[in-house]
Each structure stands twice: as structure tokens, then as C-alpha cells.
């Protein structure tokens, strides 16, 4: 009898030894003469349980984790094939409280299907969204996206339907659809998980977009720090082409859509959409002044739809179930679901896709189980390197774009990084400047020079050199950067700095603390 096993091969599972587990499994199965089919999937997103091994049984899949190579023999002895009892047995993964409390609309297939198989994708509802879009036509598709209330998941939260409408109405010989897969924000990995675990959902979303706005060419700009995502995308694109879902005649509709992945080259600023377009054109990633907006004058001067991975990936569900069904999730003007990424010093880190509106505390305590070190939590940074540091007293803030803005923070791409009480917020503020100095595109002075000045000034504070005067200087500098920067790199670097200063002033007392490692 053949046993079907599932084991992730996304970068995080590999980082935790999934390939070593796979090798041990194959060896053991051979030695025992077992007929094992091992399907390599994406991750379910319960990262403390990776590598998570699942077995197909008549009662559904049964999961075990975290599995080490040395556990394989005892797992087989315990009757892994039948889902037998073992200290690593989790049971049915979808019944695990971490997953059972989520609303997985975008990530519904991630960790379940073979990411390289169009057949598996279709068997799990794939391409129903594109079918619906082809039936609805461009205007109907854009209408559905508008009705869903979807806002860009890349960070800025701009209404997706409005952008699609602008590109649809633009007249030009060539239009482009570009996916921003630069995912540079620290503490975020949802784009990566989706690209590695269910890339066809992104590809379907981009195809729906192309048909809606009238684009025949598309690019996915994937950061080079994600070699596995890049490879998974290339494989999935080739599979979709072979199956007639990409190429000259998409699903027999007579419409063409040619999609290609391109690799970034290690520049954070290339996540900013105009810098990204410059980079795709083969140039240095220097930010362009807006207007003109990319929707009207984007890649090679043509109308271009730029969206984040998760924005595109939300669309197949929206087209299949209708805009209002998506808008039924969430709160206020933050509708639908947000794939939250819980990271840093936390016991149970991972991917949590739920309707907007959970509080930070619910995410960190109920899902995350508190800090990984067991020490008290002291600070949480939400929204990547340009996001605010919040103290415990702000943990009741709901995950909602407007609620975060009201607390001088931002949701960004949904990354939550937990720090325990060993964190030094002055050092974190210094790092924010250091990062900006290293990654600035250099186009405007407040960002290019301000970041370096900020770093030097915080060093003076830490060395105990006129702390009050120097902190006033930091505050002034932040104002200049906020008001005088062309893009959010320089414009938002003051957010982590000022939040650290506001909520954790005691860390800036100039106690002559040890300085961080020298800048690069």
C-alpha cells in the first residue's frame, strides 16, 4: 500500500532542516520496503512546528512536528502511515487552534497543494477566479475589485480597484502589469510564503489583472534574497504556460498574457514602485518624482499596474466569491483579511491571516504565546523598518490602517516584530537611521544626509554628549526628513526613531552605553 506524505520545502522549512528530514524519510522507507510518495508543499505557516510532516489518512491529513531526522524511525514505528500516536503528533492541522481561528482566503491552499502542479491547483478551486473574470469582462472585474474594498497590501493601502480602473481607462499601445515582490520589510515573509507555497494564486491574480486592464505583458520583480521563491515562480509560470493559462491565448479567451520573473539585486529602495520600474528598465533604482503616476506612465513610459504580491493574490478569491463577500470581513475602511506575519522574539511565530480588527495583544498573546525568551515583552515594531515601536500600553490597538495611523504608526505589509526587555530602543533608533543611510537612493538631501547626521547625533547622545541638545537636534532632523523627502524611505524613517524617543525616553538618557557594531 502506498503512503502519501507531505513535507514543506519553502525557505523557512528548509532553514529548519526539511531536506534533512526528507532524506532520512526516503532512506528509512527504502530500508523498510515502504512505498512512500513524498509531496513537497509550501508551509502552513506555523513556523515553530516546522518541519511539519503530514500523512494522508481516511480521516484527512494528520500532522507531526517539529520533526527532526532522528525522529523518523520512531514515527514509522508508531504507525505514521495510519496517523498513529507519537509525542510529535499534532492531529488534523486545520483543527489546530492557530489555524482554526484564522480566515484563510488568500492562503487557503498554501501548505496543502503541490505548488508546481496546475492540476492540484485546479483541484483545490484554482482558476475559478479567472473564469469569473473572463465572464464578467474588464469593467465587471474592476467593479468586483472596487466592491471588495481591497487596499494595497504593499504598505501604502491605496484602493486597488481605483488603480485598476485608471490603468484600464488609459489608452496606449502597450500596457504592463507588474508585481512588487521585493518584500524588503524586515519581519515580513507572507509574499515569500505565497510565492513558494502557492505561486499560481499570484499568477492567476496577475492574469485577472492583465485581462481587466488590457495588458499583455507582465513582470514579477522578486528580490534576490529569495532564490527559492524565484525558482518556484519560474516553475509555476512554465506549468501555467503548458496548461494554457498563460501565453498567447489565456484559457481559450483569445487574450494574450506573457509573464516573466525578474530578480532584484539587493536594494531595499527597489521596493518603492518607481524605483522598481527603473530597475526593471535596467537602470539604477533611483526614485522617480510623481506625477506622472505609474498607472499612466510606468514601465518604459507605458501605463503600468503595480501591485504587491498579496494584493494580486487576494483577487482570485474576490472574483470567485464576489466583492461584497470579501468586504464582509474586516472593520472600518480596512476590509477583507490581512496576512499578519508574527516574528522576532515570540514563542509561536508564523503567518496569521485574519479579518482586520484583531488587536496586537490578541495576535501576540493568543496566537504567539508571548515572547520566545519567556522574558517580559517590552516593544513591538509593526510594519517593517519604517514602522513604529509600540510599548505594551499600545497593544490594544486594533490592526486597522486608520487605528495605526492615529497612534503614529503604520500597518505596512503586516509584519509584527516582538522584542523582550533586553531591547535597547536607542540602539533601534540608531539602526533606523543607519538602515536609511545604507539604503537611500540618494536623490534627495534630507534623506541622504539626514540619515547619516541622525546616526551620528544618536551616537553623541549615547556617549553622554549634551544629550538634551542632541535629542532636540534629532527631533528637528526628523521633521526635516518627514517634510522634505521625496519618498517614504526618508519620509518615514522618523517613525521608528520618534516612536522610540516618545515611548522609551529612558533608553536615551546618555548613559555612555556600548555602541553598536560599526556601520558597514
Amino acid at each position: 500500500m502506498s503512503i502519501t506524505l507531505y513535507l514543506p520545502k519553502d525557505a523557512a522549512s528548509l532553514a529548519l532542516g526539511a531536506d534533512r528530514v526528507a532524506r532520512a524519510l526516503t532512506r528509512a522507507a527504502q530500508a523498510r520496503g515502504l512505498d512512500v510518495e513524498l509531496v513537497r508543499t509550501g508551509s502552513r505557516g506555523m513556523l515553530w512546528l516546522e518541519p511539519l510532516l503530514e500523512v494522508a489518512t481516511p480521516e484527512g491529513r494528520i500532522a507531526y512536528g517539529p520533526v527532526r531526522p532522528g525522529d523518523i524511525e520512531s514515527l514509522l514505528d508508531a504507525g505514521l502511515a495510519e496517523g498513529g500516536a507519537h509525542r510529535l503528533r499534532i492531529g488534523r492541522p486545520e483543527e489546530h487552534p492557530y489555524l482554526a481561528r484564522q480566515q484563510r482566503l488568500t492562503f487557503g491552499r498554501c501548505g496543502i497543494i503541490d505548488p508546481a502542479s496546475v492540476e492540484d491547483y485546479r483541484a483545490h478551486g484554482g482558476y475559478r477566479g479567472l473564469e469569473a473574470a473572463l465572464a464578467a469582462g474588464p469593467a465587471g472585474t474592476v467593479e468586483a475589485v472596487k466592491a471588495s474594498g481591497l487596499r494595497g497590501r504593499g504598505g501604502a493601502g491605496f484602493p486597488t480597484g481605483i488603480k485598476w480602473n485608471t490603468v484600464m481607462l488609459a489608452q496606449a499601445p502597450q500596457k504592463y502589469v507588474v508585481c512588487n515582490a521585493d518584500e524588503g520589510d524586515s519581519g515580513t515573509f507572507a509574499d515569500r510564503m505565497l510565492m513558494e507555497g502557492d505561486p499560481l494564486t499570484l499568477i492567476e491574480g496577475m492574469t485577472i489583472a492583465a485581462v481587466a486592464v488590457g495588458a499583455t505583458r507582465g513582470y514579477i520583480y522578486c528580490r534576490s534574497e529569495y532564490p527559492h521563491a524565484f525558482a518556484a515562480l519560474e516553475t509555476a509560470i512554465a506549468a501555467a504556460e503548458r496548461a494554457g493559462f498563460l501565453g498567447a491565448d489565456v484559457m481559450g479567451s483569445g487574450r494574450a498574457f506573457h509573464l516573466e520573473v525578474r530578480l532584484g539585486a539587493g536594494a531595499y529602495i527597489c521596493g518603492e514602485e518607481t524605483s522598481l520600474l527603473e530597475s526593471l528598465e535596467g537602470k539604477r533604482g533611483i526614485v522617480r518624482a510623481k506625477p506622472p503616476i505609474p498607472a499612466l506612465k510606468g514601465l518604459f513610459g507605458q501605463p503600468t499596474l503595480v501591485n504587491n504580491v498579496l494584493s494580486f493574490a487576494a483577487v482570485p478569491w474576490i472574483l470567485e466569491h464576489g466583492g461584497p463577500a470579501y468586504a464582509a470581513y474586516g472593520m472600518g475602511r480596512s476590509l477583507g483579511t490581512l496576512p499578519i506575519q508574527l516574528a522576532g522574539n515570540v514563542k509561536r511565530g508564523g503567518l496569521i491571516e485574519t479579518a482586520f480588527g484583531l488587536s496586537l495583544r490578541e495576535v501576540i498573546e493568543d496566537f504567539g504565546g508571548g515572547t520566545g525568551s519567556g522574558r517580559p515583552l517590552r516593544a513591538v515594531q509593526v510594519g517593517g523598518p519604517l514602522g513604529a515601536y509600540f510599548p505594551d500600553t499600545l497593544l490594544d490597538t486594533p490592526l486597522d490602517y486608520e487605528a495605526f495611523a492615529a497612534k503614529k504608526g503604520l500597518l505596512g505589509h503586516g509584519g509584527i516584530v516582538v522584542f523582550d526587555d533586553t531591547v535597547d530602543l536607542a540602539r533601534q533608533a540608531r539602526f533606523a537611521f543607519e538602515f536609511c543611510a545604507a539604503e537611500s537612493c540618494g536623490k534627495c538631501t534630507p534623506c541622504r544626509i539626514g540619515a547619516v547626521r541622525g546616526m551620528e547625533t544618536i551616537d553623541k547622545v549615547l556617549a553622554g554628549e549634551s544629550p538634551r541638545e542632541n535629542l532636540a537636534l534629532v527631533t528637528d532632523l526628523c521633521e526635516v526628513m518627514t517634510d522634505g523627502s521625496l519618498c517614504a524611505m526618508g519620509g518615514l524613517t522618523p517613525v521608528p526613531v520618534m516612536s522610540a524617543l516618545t515611548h522609551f525616553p529612558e533608553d536615551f538618557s546618555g548613559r555612555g552605553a556600548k555602541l553598536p557594531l560599526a556601520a558597514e
Partner: protein
Amino acid sequence: MPSHEHARGASREPWDAGRAAGIIAEHAHREGATLPILHALQETFGYVDGEAVPLIADALNLSRAEIHGCLTFYHDFRAEPAGRHTVKLCRAEACQAVGADALHEDVLRRYDVAWHGTTRDGRVTVEPVFCLGLCACGPAALVDGEPVGRLDLDTLADALTERAA
């Protein structure tokens, strides 16, 4: 494979202008071909030799200054060969939250190397990187392009041994 991170000492070829011209010609027809060409060259040779700049400029009908500008703007591209193994250590916030800074000090001391530097025996080059998307299992690293989570000095040494095997 797209990324130079996969290139291991053994698979790298010595710089050869003729071979480079061939690689450039393979990609020159693509829209915005500069980055794909630079990646392909680095993948083959382990770095992008200065001699490649005029070759690319001619093939793409761009100025040498534009190509040179790209080479220096992007952190990925190297102007000289790296060591036999490349270790990229994540210095970003989620890894900081689990002790990456202290670990990195130990790594640099143990291998007697500075950021961007190569060990004296030419074995290991250490590069900083800002986030690898492994933020729930940090400290994170890429060792010759292979991800490693919950990094410490021992797992790093193991990963390097495994890559050399």
C-alpha cells in the same frame, strides 16, 4: 539558476571576456536586460569583472557610465571574487530581537573577518543582508544560497561543512 549565491567555488569559471560576450548576447534582446546580464555574469564568474562594462554597454547601446552606475548601485554585485563560500547574515530587526547582533560579533571574531570581507584562507566571505524572510526563525542566514534558521556558531560551522562536502 539566477543567483550568484548558488555559485560555489568549484562551479565558478575564471574570467573570460569571450565567454562573457556570449552570455551578454544571450540576454541582450530582453527588455531592460542590464540586471539579468549582471546576474548571469556573476553567476558564472562569481563577480562582475570591470572588463564586462564596455561589453554590456556596447551590446545594449547604453553608456559605460550607466552600466557602471548599476554595478555600484546594487549591493549584490561584486567587483572581485568572493571566497569559496558566501555567508549572508541577516542584520534586520526580527533577527536583532533574537540576539543577531551579539551572534554576528562572535562570528566575525571566530572567522577573523569584517563585514564584506573574506577569511585569510579564502574560504568564507561574510556579507550583511537585511531580512531573508525567515523572521520567525532567526537569527537567519543564507550559506551559499541555502537558508539556515536559528543560527548559532555551531549551526554555521555545520552548514559550511555540509556545503563543502
